[in-house]
Each structure stands twice: as structure tokens, then as C-alpha cells.
């Protein structure tokens, strides 16, 4: 019964999403398309954090790696003079995106292999610092990565030629990604993830190789983050270090926190809500507020405030598992 309702709701919402472009101005369609891609980022983070309880604060590393991989594949001339100069053809967009995901997963594997044996908040600490390393590398090797400016991959490499087209492709990518991740967490694999989150020691005693499963979750998480990043580059045409940065990470955290950690649907809804909040209606609210009260306020301040409030009042519930984990 629950399953039937869920499928029905999903179908209705999808149908809604598909007809939206008919009724909304182009600028909004563009924005919502970007929101779909952001949802992939939020959901992929949830797979790691909500289900296995390992808090990865460096998720944006994978977003950025996926993004730059795809971008560089489309602009191989930037790779001249480096070890990768043999790459010379522009792959089709779909391949580019998948490669973005794969390279991100590869990086995820390396990082996971080294760091997943670290305890609770040490893992959080290392992963928190990683994005900064990648951002630095963007600045230092700016011939390749474009530095702070980022670089463009050319209009011809967009997901589609029209905004509406891009919207549909973004929706498709999101839909497929989320469904895959959903199936994965609902499978026996997902069950093992949750065992990890509830009580790592118990899981180990029950014979589950915790490091192996943490790594698998990490791979899934990083793969889809990479897909998201690559898709974003093909959507907005430019790659830039903002995709590595902390504000994006906090936006992802806020989305999953609001939606509910450990629930894929929650992250979808949370992601949709928060991304649109930041880029659309929150601005309106603030314009009105700042016209009346002269307070230093902008949309980031409000979002961080919301995150703080939620984190303080609702750290239990879905965090029950994390809490128990850390107190070891």
C-alpha cells in the first residue's frame, strides 16, 4: 500500500515537473533545471551520511572533480603541456558526464581508502579540509583549471540547445540518479549501511566488514556527486571553483537536514526547497525586510540561521544513529 502511494506521488510530481516549462518564464525554467541537478548532490550526500552515519564534510570535492573532468574533456586544449595531453577528442556529452562520475568515484576510492579508518569526527575534520586543497590546486595550476575565473566549455556543449531542453535533460538525469540510489539503499546493501549507522561495533560483531561497506557507500556517494557536478557544467556551460567551495557544502547539509537525513525523498524535497530558496524567493523576502528594517541581512545569513536553529532543536531523531556512533 505504502509503495503504491509512493509511486503515485512520484508519478504525479514528475508529471507536474514535465509540464512546468509551459507555464513558467524561461528564467525560472532555467533555475529549476539547476535545482534538479543540485538535488543529485544532496541525495548523494544523504546516501553516505544519512545511511552509514559517516559525516563527509568534503562532498564538494567530488562535485568539483566531476565538473572539471567533464569540462576538461570538452576542452582538451587546456590539457596541452600536461601528462594528459594525449586526450584530444571531445566525447559526447553523456559519456563526458559519466566519466565525470567515474573519476569522482576514483578519487572517492582513494580518499575513502585512506580516511575511512579514521574515527568519527576526525573523518569529518579531514574531509572538511579537502575541498580547500582542491581549490588551491585550481588556483595554482590555473592554465589547466582556469583559476578563480573558471572557464567556459562552449555553447555547443550544452545539455541541449534550448533552456527547456536542458530542463528536461536535467530532470532525466536527476530522476535516473535518484531512482538508482533509492534502489541501492533499499536493497540488502542498504540494510548493511543502516546497520553500520546504528551500531558499528555490533555490525562488526555480526560479521559485517564495516570498512568495505563504508567504502561502497562512499563510492556511490562520490560517483553521483561527480555526475551532478559534470551535469551542472554542461548545463551552465562554465566550470568554476565555486563547485568546490564551503557554501555549497553547507547548502547541501541544510537541504538534507531540512528534508530529513536518511530518507532519499526527504533530500529531494529539501534540496528542491532550499536551492530555490537561495536563488529565488528568499531574495524577495529579504528585499522586503531590508526596506523596512535596516539590518545587515542577506539570504545566506537566513539560510545559515535556519541551519543553526534546526541543528540545535532537532539533533536527535535522525541523528540518533550518529550520536550513538560518535559516543564510542
Amino acid at each position, binding site marked *: 500500500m505504502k509503495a503504491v502511494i509512493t509511486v503515485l506521488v512520484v508519478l504525479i510530481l514528475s508529471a507536474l515537473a514535465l509540464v512546468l516549462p509551459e507555464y513558467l*518564464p*524561461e*528564467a*525560472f525554467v*532555467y*533555475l529549476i533545471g*539547476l535545482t534538479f541537478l543540485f538535488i543529485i548532490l544532496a541525495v548523494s550526500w544523504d546516501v553516505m551520511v544519512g545511511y552509514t552515519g559517516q559525516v563527509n564534510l568534503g562532498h564538494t570535492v567530488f562535485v568539483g572533480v566531476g565538473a572539471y573532468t567533464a569540462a576538461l574533456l570538452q576542452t582538451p586544449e587546456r590539457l596541452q603541456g600536461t601528462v594528459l595531453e594525449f586526450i584530444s577528442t571531445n566525447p559526447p556529452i553523456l559519456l563526458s558526464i559519466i566519466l565525470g562520475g567515474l573519476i569522482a568515484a576514483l578519487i572517492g576510492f582513494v580518499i575513502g581508502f585512506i580516511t575511512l579508518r579514521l574515527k568519527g569526527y576526525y573523518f569529518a575534520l579531514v574531509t572538511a579540509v579537502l575541498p580547500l586543497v582542491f581549490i*588551491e590546486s585550481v*588556483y*595554482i595550476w*590555473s*592554465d589547466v583549471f*582556469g*583559476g*578563480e*575565473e*573558471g*572557464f*567556459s566549455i562552449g*555553447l555547443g556543449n550544452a545539455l541541449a540547445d534550448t*533552456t527547456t531542453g536542458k530542463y528536461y535533460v536535467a530532470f532525466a538525469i536527476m530522476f535516473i540518479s535518484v531512482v538508482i540510489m533509492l534502489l541501492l539503499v533499499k536493497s540488502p546493501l542498504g540494510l548493511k549501511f543502516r546497520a553500520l549507522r546504528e551500531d558499528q561495533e555490533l555490525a562488526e560483531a555480526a560479521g559485517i566488514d564495516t570498512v568495505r561497506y563504508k567504502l561502497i557507500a562512499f563510492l556511490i556517494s562520490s560517483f553521483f556527486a561527480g555526475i551532478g557536478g559534470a551535469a*551542472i557544467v554542461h548545463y*551552465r*556551460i*562554465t566550470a*568554476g571553483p*565555486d563547485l568546490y567551495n564551503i557554501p555549497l557544502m553547507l547548502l547541501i547539509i541544510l537541504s538534507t537536514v*531540512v528534508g*530529513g537525513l536518511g530518507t532519499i525523498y526527504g533530500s529531494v524535497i529539501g534540496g528542491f*526547497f532550499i536551492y530555490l*530558496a537561495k*536563488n*529565488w*524567493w*528568499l*531574495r*524577495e*523576502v529579504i*528585499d*522586503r525586510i531590508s526596506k523596512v528594517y535596516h539590518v545587515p541581512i*542577506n539570504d545566506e545569513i537566513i539560510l545559515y540561521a*535556519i541551519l543553526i*536553529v*534546526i541543528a540545535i*532543536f*532537532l539533533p*536527535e*531523531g535522525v541523528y540518533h544513529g550518529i550520536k550513538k556512533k560518535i559516543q564510542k
Partner: protein
Amino acid sequence: MKAGKVLVGVILIALMIAGCAQQEPEEAITPEEAEPVEEVKEKIVIGVIGPMTISEGTAEKRAAMLAAEEINSEGGILGKEIEVVVGDTKLDPSTATSEFRRLATEKNAVMITGGFSSGVMNSMMDTMAETKTIFLADASSPGHPAKVAEDYETYKYWFRISQNNGTTFAWDLADMIDFFNNEQGMSIEKVYIIRDEHIWTDAVIADLTPLLEEKGVEIIKDEKVPRGYATYDVQLTEAQELGADIIMPILAIAGTGDVLAKQWAEFEVPILLAGHDLKPIDAEFYEDTNGAAEGEVFLADGGVLSTAPPTEKAAEFLETYREKYGFYPESHQAYGAYDAVYIYKMAVEAAAEAGEEDPFNPDVVVEYLEKYSPESPVELTRVIAWYDNHALVWGDDFVRNWISQWQDGEQCIIWPSNVATCDFKVPEQVSG
């Protein structure tokens, strides 16, 4: 817990509704802050896009609004009233492209000005190509006019109006050395460079090195510093040890030009500090460094210093700006934005006069904007003319990065002579 989440959800939805409800009319900032415009008067929308939490963005917004107000009080553009709409890029490419698109397609802006800085500009140029909106922009990366040159039909709607191409910094710096050597009787042979770790400086150095070589001037050290770098004592000491004749900063991103000046003064380094650093251009730089700026030589980006307006219109603009907002333009981008609105008006009017059917058509406007070439420039707050790649024409009689110096707590231009407002003074710690 569940209840708490529901509560938060309700609050967020309430906020959203509150936001949506106000969405349509209030957003546009009409220059008079009046009630919604009646349908009777025809409007024309001009957009300003930039990072609205920092001075570059707010200066553009204020300047554009000022220009619109002035033009509207004299009948608008071809009888249509200008409405200014604002987009905030937050220096983020995703947000910037989204905002640009919103201004262009939802607000129907016919011209958009702004675009700080280079990274965000890149992404917006692609959106501009799609929406075919006239984009009178700032930032200085040579990459932007290069795009116009490479793919004219796609990117022709872009013109840079705020300042010269980044490459001109090299020319101005080389001329500065000449000025010191040939006109001031100094003998600058060894240059110690401190520059941003960024591709924009790579381009400058690439052009500067051969120019200096011709003059027999050697770059004895090329130190790249990351963002926020603050321990310049190392570089200052090294410059002394290497016998440098001049310490030349090429800084914009590092953001710590004030620290450099402070330490230069503090350590009483007996070497001239002269180069291209964005920080000394700020009117409060002297105060911010507690006077350490005294004697520093710098380039005035965009060809204007509030203490030395190059044209009459610039002088007027400065005063009107101050009257309306209480201070002089907080950033040199203001001049670009102001000129942008005026030059757009002029181009459209010229098109109408020449009998064009649709003078607001972007392809038509591009043609008429292009008429402002080196042979026939137009004088606004600066003298504007464009090259084929839509970069600003550089020259003594056009826009160039005036060589300026902080003297007695104030900025003044020391070269070229047709705009100079003071004589070069050797800083005490250098001569003494």
C-alpha cells in the same frame, strides 16, 4: 521532533508565500521609488548585474540609477522612461547566469551593464549570447574580447566599458618605468615583482617582460602570492637584498595591498613602491593604512580618479553622485555603469535618427555602438571608443590607467601630462 520539523516546514512555506506574493511589481527599482508605473508611459528596462554585497556592485547600481534618473528627467530614451532592474551575481557563476537570464528574459532588459568579475563574466557571456542582450561590461580579462574576436556573431553584443584590457596594464607599467627613468632622472634597472597567483597577471607579465627587456630593465624576482597573503616582510627584505630599484605589485585578487603598504612603510624600505594594485585606488586607502600609503605610486584603473576627473562630465558626475548618495563613487566601476547608460541612449538615438525601423534591436544597436571607434570617440565621464574586439581604446586621449600617487593624504595623477594634477614626489623613505 516530528512536530518541530513540521513547524519549520510551515515557517518556510509561509516565508515562501510571503516572498512569492510580492514577487511581481516591487522588484524593479524605479529611479523615483514611486508607486507602480501606469501603463500609459512606455518603459524601457536597463539591467545592472554584479555582486551587490561589495562596492563594485553597489557602485554600478547607484551610478546606473543616477544616469537613468537624469535621462528620464529629460524625456527618457526616445520618449520612453528607463526602469533600472538589479541582479546580484554573488560572484557565483550559477547565480550569475540565472540572474542574467532573469533580467534579460523576464524583465526584458534591453541592455545590461556590470559583470564583475572575470570568472562570472565568462559564464554570463554565454547567457548573453543566447538572449542576445547588449552587455556593456566591466572586468579586465583579455579572454573576454578574445571571445568576441574569435566568434563575432555570437558574442558581438558584449562591449567592455569600465576599463581597459588587462594587457594594457603592462603598457602602462612600462610607460611608468620610462617616466621615472627619462623624466625623473632615476635609474630603474631592477624590478622586483609581487603579483597575484592568477591567470590575469600571467597575461600582464607576458606582455611586460619583453617591453622591459627592450629598455634594459631586468625583472629580478617574480613572486606570486596567493589570496590573502600577508607576510610581505619576506619579500620586502629580499627586494632590498637583491638591490631592487622598484617594488612593483600587480595585485587585485590577493586583496592585501593594504598590508603590503603598511609593511613597506613600517620597515621603512628604501625602495620605490609602484605598480598596479587595486587597493590604493580606494579613496579611504590612506586612512585604512593609517598613513602608510604616503608615496605609493599606482595605476588608476578605468581612467578616473575621484580627485582628478578627466572630463567635465566626470566632474559633474562626481558631484551629483555625492549629492545623491553622500559620498563619492565607492568604486571605479561606477563610471563605467554611468557611461553605459548614456552611450546606450546615444546609440539608440543615432539609430533612430538614421531611420532604423527598430532602433532598440540588439543587432542594430551593436552597429551603432561600433561607430564609436578610435576615429570618432565620444566624451562621457571618460573618452570612449572601441576596438574591433569591443575592448576600450587605450591611449593618452582615451582611457588609460593614469599613473597616480598618494601625496599628503590625497591621490593625484602624475602622468601623462595632459591629465596630470601634481608632480611626482620621491617618498621620504626612498630618498632619505
